[in-house]
């Protein structure tokens, strides 16, 4: 499966649901009349969110019509940016950071967990079609390495067991708690803070 190529299995219809439509209209209204095309990236993202993390071709056509612009222009944008998925990635889209800081802190264990629990290969749907995973570059949470992103949430300070736990919860349909899995708040030091002691709310 290649996320950069439109999937072979395309749905027949796509339409914004009420909340997406509201969001889309809000974004379009930010641009002056006649320049609504500028909203194309935001709208593609809304479509992706609504449609289980991927953009089908009908959605591009729908957006093209929505913004009154040629379909090929939407298609160009959607194929240019790598964070638009053009093939199904599952309702839970797992992105594991394997850039140096995470790698040093054991990101390979997370990858192993993904291979065990989700699918053998990257970008391959799990057997229940609910989940897929991919390695990504730095997600900017190096202080809490290793970490992964599932849809909009970060899961940090992981190891193999904790990752498997999270996947278990997902497969049961629960939403695991985002954030650090070693009990610390955000990115604070592990054994109380050692700097900026004189500032109360630092």
């Amino acid at each position, binding site marked *: 499966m290649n996320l*950069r190529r439109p999937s072979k299995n395309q749905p027949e219809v796509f339409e914004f649901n009420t909340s997406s439509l509201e969001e889309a209209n809000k974004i379009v209204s930010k641009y002056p009349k006649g320049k609504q095309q500028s909203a194309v990236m935001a709208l593609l993202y809304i479509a992706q969110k609504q449609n289980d993390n991927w953009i089908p071709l009908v959605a591009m056509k729908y957006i093209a019509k929505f913004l009154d612009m*040629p*379909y*090929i*222009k939407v*298609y*160009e944008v959607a*194929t*240019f940016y790598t964070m638009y998925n053009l093939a199904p990635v599952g309702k839970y889209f797992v992105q594991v950071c394997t850039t140096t800081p995470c790698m040093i802190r054991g990101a390979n264990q997370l990858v192993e967990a993904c291979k065990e629990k989700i699918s053998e290969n990257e970008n391959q749907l799990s057997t229940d079609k609910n989940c897929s995973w991919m390695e990504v570059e730095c997600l900017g949470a190096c202080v809490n390495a290793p970490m992964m992103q599932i849809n909009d949430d970060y899961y940090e300070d992981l190891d193999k067991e904790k990752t498997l736990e999270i996947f278990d919860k997902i497969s049961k349909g629960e939403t695991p708690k985002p954030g650090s899995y070693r009990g610390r708040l955000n990115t604070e030091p592990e054994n109380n803070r050692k700097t900026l002691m004189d500032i109360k709310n630092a």
Partner: protein
Amino acid sequence: MPKLKVNDIEVEVEDGLTVLQACEKAGAEIPRFCYHEKLSIAGNCRMCLVEMEKSPKPIASCAMPAAEGMNIKTNTAFVEKARKGVMEFLLANHPLDCPVCDQGGECDLQDQSMFYGVDKSRFKENKRSVPEKYMGPLIKTQMTRCIHCTRCVRFATEVAGVSELGAIGRGEDMQITTYLEQSMQSELSANVIDLCPVGALTSKPYVFEARPWELTKTETVDVMDAVGSNVRVDTYDWEVKRVLPLINEDINEEWISDKTRYACDGLLNQRLDTPFIKYNGKFEKASWDEVFKIIKSKFENSSKEKICGFVGDLTNMETGYIFKEFFDRTLSNHNYDSRSDNRYVDVKERENYIFNSSINGIEDADLIFLIGSNPRYEATILNARIRKAFVNNNTKIISLNDVGDLTYPYESLDGQTQSIKNIFEGSDEISKKILDAKHPIIIIGESLLKLNSADYLFNLIKDFLNKNNKFTDNWNPLNILSCDASTVGNFDLGIINNDINLIKDLKSNKFEIVYLVGQDNLEFDKKDEFIIYQGSHGDKGAEIADIILPGAAYTEQDGHFTNLEGKIQKAYKASYPPGDAKEDWQIINELAEVMNNRKLFNDKDELESSMFNFLKLQKEKEIVDSKEQLNSNFQNEKLNIQVKDYYFSNVIARSSKTMIECDNSKLNLKSTGTEG
């Protein structure tokens, strides 16, 4: 007007021009791939790098506006190194298949790599390969050769007005594609072949036919529509291999329509190469002497009122003129016409049948009103101008009928003649718009002139414009859009008969002898008429003929054509008529000799000078005061736009296989070919 120095030569350029244009003005040639005068600036090939004083890096001259005091160097070692670097990157993924590439010999990349290419490659990685794309029957793709200049994408969006081409993906994976893998829905699509600086988009019908240096090039004009696009006809031996556009800023700029470009294979099919006589419903070959003798006896045994003649849509003016002379002098009869229908035309004034605002004038217009015309199919290149006017000046365009996609948005009315009446009697909103417009253009199509009340409406429009002082010294808003190459020329020559209704008489079988010169569009039921058909192709005219005189096509004889704006242009002979066929004027001249023992003209030069003399006299004779009473009555009708099938509008196109393929591809919009 900024002044700048290019290689120590001082140049002054207009505001808004780029460094590249300034360099050209100073005589320094800049290599380029993505830059094109007629398209927007992309600046993505980086081949046009030049050195600018005080800039640490070389600049892309095509995208840099020329500014006061710049000091540009185009021939330093620094520039050469930069361009060599760019060229190395361009060649990194370009296949070395020039020997099997159709672009070889006229390839920008090939030419420029002779100057800037490095003879060794440092690229050890795998070369990129791109899957083939299907772009219809005209464009052959070999996308591995693509260097991503995006000229084709910009042409399709900006000039052709079909946003169907795009660049998908990014970086090395970028690909040019049509999203549905179908042919481009444009009549200008094949121009991307000329624009492509490499061999990624090449001509499908011309594939592996010839190398550019083997071809004889003849600069001539096109006859597929009345625009008179300037073209170059490339011939190999006597065979026309391809037709390419020539630059003429006043007419076709740099583009030609697909029909102009590809109908040329029709010159090889269905040709009449020897005289034929019909015996018992079957054509048999004959000699010129035989047929001339038969024609002579037929003419002599018939009263002159019973003879009529029609000139066709692709004949040149020389042929038209000698045909007229033949009737006037040899047969002493005026039963000739160049129309195949009874459309209204008043040839007393020349402005009544030409495109007065001129094609260039379209760009100055602030309101365009189309009445009974679909310029997209009737005059594709002119339509591209209207689109240009719309894109550049946001010109308001109104059409009386809804004629489908014209590649630009327009307001359409109900298509009733009553609306025309209302508008040009001044009692409509649009009449106000026309009055407010400084440079309005009213384009009247042939469909309007075919109406029963054409006479009334035409004069109403003209009077309205006249009364409101829309005719000025430098602006004439009245435009007639002719569809065929020889229409205006024939009207100039007076090959028209408004005294008798020839078509009606023909349909009621009043004539004994009908002489058709390249006229294939007459619709009548043949009874006992003796029909002489002179022409190049075996089509409708030849089918009903009793005697066929094989003539020459437009690439096979010298001759003049007047385009729809009234510009006379000469078409040159690029090839020879096949077999025993002769040039059209020669046939009529020889026939006259058989009839009267005297040629009409001694040679072509005499014919030409006599014709120009006639045109000059005609011009002087032009009666300015020709106010006639409106003798016809108004009648409310639905104006139907009759557009001839675009790809089959004349005999050459009808004989062309490529045109059949084009027609099929436009009907069949389903996705075909390989998936990208």
